[in-house]
């Protein structure tokens, strides 16, 4: 993050004891997606939580040797499975779109986005 914040004084953001809330920008985006969708009634939090619990359990039961736990990877997988389960997004749509995005030339300028990313 490049936000200039007073990190120690009385105006410091009360986020926690010095640890960033999100380690990488995509984590904040995927967090925001779930909260925004829930806020507009796309799903109940219990429903999302069930998917999150399942994705975490899957990772814990079987993950590549040496791979560190990533909470927001599980969160992303949970959100994908929720929106696929309710038919909002097709089964392969996210992967297809991500593949297309991966094919962008280096130095792309987020063509197609008209909002600010935080990175």
């Amino acid at each position, binding site marked *: *993050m490049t936000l200039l914040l007073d990190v120690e004084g009385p105006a410091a*953001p*009360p*986020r*926690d*004891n010095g640890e960033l*809330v*999100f*380690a990488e920008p*995509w984590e*904040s*985006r*995927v*967090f*925001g*997606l779930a*909260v*925004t*969708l829930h*806020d507009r009634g*796309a799903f109940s939090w*219990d429903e999302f*939580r069930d998917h*999150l*619990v399942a*994705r*975490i359990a*899957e*990772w*814990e039961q079987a993950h*590549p040797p040496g*791979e560190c*736990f*990533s*909470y*927001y990877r*599980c969160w*992303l*997988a949970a959100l*994908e*499975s929720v*929106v*696929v*389960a309710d038919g*909002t*997004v097709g089964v392969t*749509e*996210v*992967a*297809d*779109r*991500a*593949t*297309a*995005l*991966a094919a962008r030339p280096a130095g792309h300028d987020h063509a197609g*986005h008209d*909002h*600010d990313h*935080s990175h």
Partner: protein
Amino acid sequence: MTTSAPNPDRLSPALRTEALEQLLTERGLVDPAVMDKFISTYENDVGPLNGATVVAKAWTDPEYRQRLLDEGTAAIKELGFSGPQGEHIVVLENTAAVHNVVVCTLCSCYPWPVLGLPPSWYKDPAYRSRMVREPRTVLAEMGLELGDDVDVAVWDSSSEVRYLVLPERPAGTEDSSESDLAALVTRDAMVGVAKVGS
């Protein structure tokens, strides 16, 4: 349904997230401006200072303390704190005889309105599994040694309920103001993995 578990595929989570955001935005399901506001709120505004304010008020106002223990959600809302993951907050009071500590064994349930988003250790598989099995050991590893005369109560948040620990007020703070007291209260103390020092 066979949605895959996260795995290290060539499509990075950043790419998948961007793809998902595009798809949902195109369908009118996500307004990026609304989403940015949510993110900013949880990055900058909502955090343990809210819980510390609640704790300091409870330490200095016995009637408030009682309301907080009786009806956590309502008492917390009196101070202006409410929102997602704060619908059913139960406040657990630490005493000389009982030390409460909070975990979510299955995921990461946490009282966002008073503590913000959980720290990484709270979400870690080791904390989630071990705190239930061997709380004293885990607490000691985190720097909190509890005497044998103190009972440890472990609360699993994996339900509708979210917990906030009301730590013991440290000795020697009888003359401290509410705001001075709030400054002493840490996130870790409100999860129950630390005490409040004076």
